[in-house]
């Protein structure tokens, strides 16, 4: 390291969190491209024929780029903006619905993802690993649906109480691993993972039994949340624009997360515990109390995410609620690792991964490449983010400020 202050350019090329994140995303897409190439019969066939004709290698390259390009193009146009429909709207003044639908979808899916990711980021920042966010969110969704669909109240009471129900259910469910860890030392990873399976069964159970199941329905479908409890959308419900007040709540949660981690006393205790548990204990912070509060807050936010999802977007539950390809809880883990637990970065990470998910659906519809590609890309991104030294070596970056992410919980408890 030189004594001189590095130039801006040198700083960009050092292993700092922003550069590492961008490069990790790039590597993730390269991995995804590799998966597309090796699973596409067309591409493999083209490569097997490169010696049969003089232009074989060019043809093979073209087929490769066409396939990968089509997939990623569908992902982009499906989640951000489709230039043709956008131009059409711009030139004719009509069709703005269709032009804005991709963005609206991305924001709609981002709302719960932002909220749950802030919750996971708070647990990470304290050195705890809440993989149970998925279950907490589902339970929040169940509680919110039950309250929103079966109780009749005026809207100014009904909507906030429905959201509170979700928060309470998620917090309660977060309390289980928190208390077990604080009292018995049970490793939160196993407990929360197992609770996810328990919740999956509970979701089916509640959708197939009397109070919550849609009356007259034999399938796993819930009652519909009453209009007085639904999160209002920004636009007329006749349009395809589903973006709703959930995204505003999400921005509020980001602000809360920033305030909590950076300005509040408890957040300070959390971060001290996360940075060095022994120092925290020595300075009089009760680690058991911290563990329980972390899971309470993290679970509460996950529950809020669940209720925002059902209350703003789907309005009723089905058996696949929030489970999807890998579950919103897993995506939240990747998002908060990508954002390195900084609420504002987490927000942008959530928008990106939400776009990846929304675009992945369009990609599946248009090119037949399964949606799971989005999850593969996400996992790859987070693997690289969690291993900054590797990214640094691949791109030959200078030493920087980034550190390998380490959790506090080592071994398997008491």
């Amino acid at each position, binding site marked *: 390291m030189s004594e001189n202050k590095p130039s801006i350019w040198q700083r960009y090329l050092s292993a700092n969190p922003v550069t590492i994140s961008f490069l990790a995303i790039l590597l993730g897409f390269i991995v995804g491209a590799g998966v597309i190439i090796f699973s596409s019969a067309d591409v493999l066939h083209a490569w097997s024929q490169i010696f049969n004709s003089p232009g074989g290698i060019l043809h093979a390259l073209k087929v490769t780029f066409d396939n990968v390009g089509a997939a990623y193009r569908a992902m982009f146009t499906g989640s951000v903006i489709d230039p043709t429909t956008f131009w059409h709207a711009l030139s004719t003044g009509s069709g703005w619905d269709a032009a804005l639908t991709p963005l609206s979808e991305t924001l709609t899916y981002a709302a719960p993802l932002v909220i749950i990711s802030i919750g996971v980021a708070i647990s990470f920042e304290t050195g705890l690993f809440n993989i149970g966010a998925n279950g907490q969110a589902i339970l929040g969704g169940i509680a919110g649906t039950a309250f929103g669909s079966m109780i009749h109240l005026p809207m100014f009471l009904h909507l906030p109480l429905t959201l509170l129900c979700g928060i309470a259910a998620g917090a309660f469910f977060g309390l289980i691993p928190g208390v077990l860890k604080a009292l018995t030392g049970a490793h939160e990873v196993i407990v929360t993972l*197992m609770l996810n399976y328990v919740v999956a*069964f509970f979701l089916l159970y509640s959708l197939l039994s009397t109070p919550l199941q849609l009356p007259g329905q034999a399938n796993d479908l819930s009652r519909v949340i009453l209009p007085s409890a639904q999160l209002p959308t920004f636009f007329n419900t006749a349009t395809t624009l589903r973006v709703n007040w959930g995204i505003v709540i999400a921005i509020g949660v980001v602000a809360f997360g920033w305030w909590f981690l950076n300005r509040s006393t408890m957040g300070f205790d959390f971060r001290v515990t996360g940075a060095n548990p022994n120092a925290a204990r020595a300075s009089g912070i009760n680690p058991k109390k911290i563990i329980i509060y972390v899971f309470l807050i993290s679970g509460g936010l996950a529950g809020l995410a669940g209720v925002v999802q059902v209350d703003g977007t789907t309005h009723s539950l089905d058996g696949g609620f929030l489970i999807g390809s890998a579950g919103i809880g897993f995506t939240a883990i990747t998002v908060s690792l990508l954002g390195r637990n900084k609420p504002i970065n987490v927000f942008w990470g959530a928008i990106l991964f939400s776009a990846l998910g929304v675009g992945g659906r369009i990609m599946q519809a248009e090119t037949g490449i399964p949606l799971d590609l989005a999850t593969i890309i996400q996992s790859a991104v987070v693997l690289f983010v969690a291993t900054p030294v590797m990214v640094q070596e691949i791109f030959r970056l200078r030493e920087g400020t980034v550190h390998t992410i380490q959790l506090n919980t080592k071994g398997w408890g008491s």
Partner: protein
Amino acid sequence: MTTVTTPVNVIRRDTPVGRTRVIGGIMIAMALFIMWVFAFGASSKATSIITFNPLNTSGGAPWTLGNLTVPSRLSDVVLALIALGTGIETIVRIPAKRVMARFGFVSVLFLLGLFVWTVRSGGPSPTNFIDLTDILVNASGITMVLIYGSMAGIMCERAGVVNIAIEGQFLGGAFVGAIVASATNSFVFATFAGAIVGALLGWVLAFFAIRYRSDQVIVGVVLVTMIGSLTNFLNLTFLTPYQQFNTGVTPNSIPIPLLDKIPIIGPLLFNQNMFFYLMYLLVGAMSFGLFKTKWGLRVRAVGEHPQAAASVGIRVKGVRYFNTILGGAIGGVGGVAFIALHGQFNPGFTSGLGYIALAALIFGRWRPAGAVVASIIFGLTSMLASGLQSFNVPVSSEILGMFPYIITIAVVSGLIGRVRAPAADGIPYKQD
């Protein structure tokens, strides 16, 4: 009895006093449950039939054993009293050893009481007999997969690498195993293919954990998700259009002459597929290897105190790489064993079995024999969840499905008492 008395404060308890009391309390609660729900839930005239002959006798039937017809209420009362006695004994005497063995005994009594109650004549169940052999044989499949998984975990964790990716190794091994088994119709080839894929995944874990000292739990969880979605992806792009690669072949049972004729034990232990016998070898080899050989001593030294191990010339990273790759291979074979059980590959069909295997190895205190016992308990519980539904038990199948997971939570929450992982488990090794 020896005349040498040990001072009280030297007794090394497996389970602390307070926790022993709690476990004793749980045992008494279970006894009372047998009494109130099972014994008095059956009419005094009801009888239950317990049979011992397997329903499926394709591999050759064992010597037949007569059916046992018992009065439902009376036998449940007896079971409850035995359980109550054990529970009270635990609370009063606070034994220093074998608290968990007592708990296991009461759990078995509880299961027996449950069976007697579910199949009582005049009850809701369509059949009023319970086939003990069949239950055990049904549970043996899941148990086998769990044993493979926990061996995979022990192999890595004894060397200080947390292998939370067992689930991913299962899925990877199962995917490749299904393809190779369908294509070649040979489970020997499938086993090798599964082992190679598992080893590859083990290498990835080792690469990130050892070379880059990444957090092993994060890498493990990410690997599971990646393999999960990759197998989903390939299942849709490859197995769905080419169904000849996912035909659902299963290996034949290989009866061991004479031994397979023993009632109950024969069908359970000596008339199974090749993966079962491979498992015996694996458990035996690992118990011996880890605790009786020089290699095992080195592995455990690396897992307990890598710096000390390095100071006597053991190549810490080399040992960790080798064990993690070997553990991954065992996990991959476990996946093939799961395919052998299940037939066709379905995305995500291991449904958390890898994590339960992880809990089993913790329950078994990082010892192969202990993990086997734990796997049997988990296997029985899982079977119970699916098996009880056929008896029209008045509990919904979704609630029963939660059982194995709740028991896993109970186990890792220290129902077992003090567990001590290898001291360097999960801690990246930094060469000075």
